């Protein structure tokens, strides 16, 4: 009797969801490059200020008057007040990224809450919340944020809240549609039969199943928040000097465009690369977490 040997080696254990996500993500080269860029940027803006011999508002009084060129002491030159541009860029990065992250977190929490309540309870709750979402979507975003920051002159934390409260609507609609579909599934019914209440059903049972699209939306919201804050600061309505952000650095560079063009390149390039990296990251996460079979 011939012995049949099972080819054990070819049977692979099923991979966990997390491992498959990581594997798919690593195949998305732009996303990996984006993540690498963001990590590098994070290191630079965290460590940079400690290594720089200058402070963001420290002035070299011998260089005051007009912007100074790039030298060995000042790698990216100095501004018209004799401040080191490279140091201000690094500090500006801290502010811009902090606003981006915090704004995105606020938008994601607000959007998830509105979408979850809307999709889970349906009926009147849904009608009221979605009409409110429609209202917010119908007001032009940039003029509205200009209006709010111009009239109220908010402190930086309040500005972050304003930015966050103007970009949650996409997330809300997304979470709502996820909840509408998921609430009909058997596992939700089972949990309900076991006596789980509304909050437990929503956040313990349904929300984890919608985490993929929410993560993608949250990532892309970081890009929107950074862009919105930069535009605001560029127009002079955002974070006010002497605190530097990439937006207000461009604002001051714009008045020296013909004299000191080197001031106008780095802040914009950093905004472009950061937002691009965030968008690639979001794209990669989408491919990794919501694969289209």
């Amino acid at each position: 009797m011939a012995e049949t040997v099972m080819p054990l080696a070819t049977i692979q254990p099923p991979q966990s969801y997390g491992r498959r996500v990581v594997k798919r993500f690593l195949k998305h080269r732009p996303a990996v490059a984006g993540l690498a860029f963001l990590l590098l940027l994070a290191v630079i803006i965290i460590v940079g200020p400690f290594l720089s011999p200058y402070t963001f508002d420290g002035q070299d009084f011998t260089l005051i008057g007009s912007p100074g060129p790039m030298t060995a002491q000042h790698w990216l030159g100095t501004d018209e007040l004799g401040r080191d541009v490279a140091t201000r860029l690094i500090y500006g990065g801290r502010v811009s990224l902090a606003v981006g992250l915090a704004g995105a977190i606020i938008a994601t929490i607000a959007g998830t809450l509105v979408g979850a309540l809307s999709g889970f309870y349906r009926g009147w709750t849904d009608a009221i919340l979605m009409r409110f979402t429609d209202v917010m979507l119908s007001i032009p975003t940039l003029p509205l944020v200009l209006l709010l920051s111009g009239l109220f002159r908010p402190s930086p934390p309040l500005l972050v809240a304003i930015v966050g409260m103007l970009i949650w609507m996409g997330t809300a609609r997304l979470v709502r549609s996820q909840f509408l579909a998921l609430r009909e599934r058997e596992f939700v019914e089972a949990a309900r039969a076991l006596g789980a209440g509304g909050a437990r059903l929503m956040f313990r049972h349904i929300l984890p199943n919608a985490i993929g699209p929410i993560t993608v939306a949250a990532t892309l919201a970081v890009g929107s928040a950074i862009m919105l804050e930069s535009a605001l600061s560029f127009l002079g309505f955002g974070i006010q000097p002497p605190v530097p952000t990439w937006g207000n650095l461009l604002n001051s560079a714009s008045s020296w465009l013909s004299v000191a063009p080197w001031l106008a390149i780095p802040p914009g390039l950093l905004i472009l690369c950061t937002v691009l990296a965030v968008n690639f990251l979001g794209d990669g996460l989408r491919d990794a977490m919501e694969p289209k079979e």
Partner: protein
Amino acid sequence: MSLGYVLRRLFSAVPLLLGISVILFSIIHLAPGGPLDMYTENPAVSKEALDQIAAAYGLDQPVPVQYVLWLKSMVVGDWGYSIRTGRPVLTEIVLRLGPTLELGGLALLLSLVIAIPLGIISASRRGSKLDSSLTLASFAGISIPVFWLALLLQLLFSVQLGWLPSAGYKSIGGGDFMDRLSHIVMPAAVLSLATVASWSRFIRSGMIDVLNQDYIRTAYAKGRSERGVVFLHALRNAMIPAVTVIAVDFATVISGAVITETVFAWPGIGRLFMESMDGRDYPMLMGLMMMGSLGIIMANIIADLAYAALDPRIRYG
């Protein structure tokens, strides 16, 4: 599509506009300070004169009363008077609408003419080097800050090369076609870049979905050329997913490209908004914001109607 549906959609915009107006009115009128700030510091303006101005604009009334008064006159087409210039809000808007329509119209025309072919090429050469380069380029186009792009163009074409005027609507004393064209080129290019990038993506994905369908295979099978298949059979259906985005972008651009108009000193609606911000011109700000919101709502309605026109399977009851 029935006339009843169109009317119902238009009617559904009314509560939306009411909600928007309440939110905007509250924001504008609850903010600290006011349009009369510039007089209160001025010793030449007496308290009585100040009260008179406030009364003339209704600023002495409680905010809810001001809102009701504003709403009443808004409905009959009286959008109030600009505090900065004293002229009717609608007159001011109409005066500035021309340059904005010129700039926005040109930018949107450019966007359509460039985005549609790019989307089609990307979709029909899916996975090729060209497609991936266009994908990268569109990501860059969406991620580039418009104000920086504007500065770079000014730096290159005005400061370095001296080919184009850096800002303005026309030269002093000038204003012939070439002069106007040289002023509009850069702002129109800046304005269209982001829309080209996003529209070409939507057209690409719409095109890919459509090209995989059976009726396209049928069209090839009966011997149509690729060009014929793409333009006669696929394009119309591939445009459907892009319609809402295109419509809303239209509305946004027409209601004033604040950043582009500011950087290029373009005397349109966006500049008017920024000037009104400086003067805290409440009636003006209210009018501009309402007009922008109305534009976005109308664009959404038109997009829904365009769906039905493009796709006979969609029926609205």
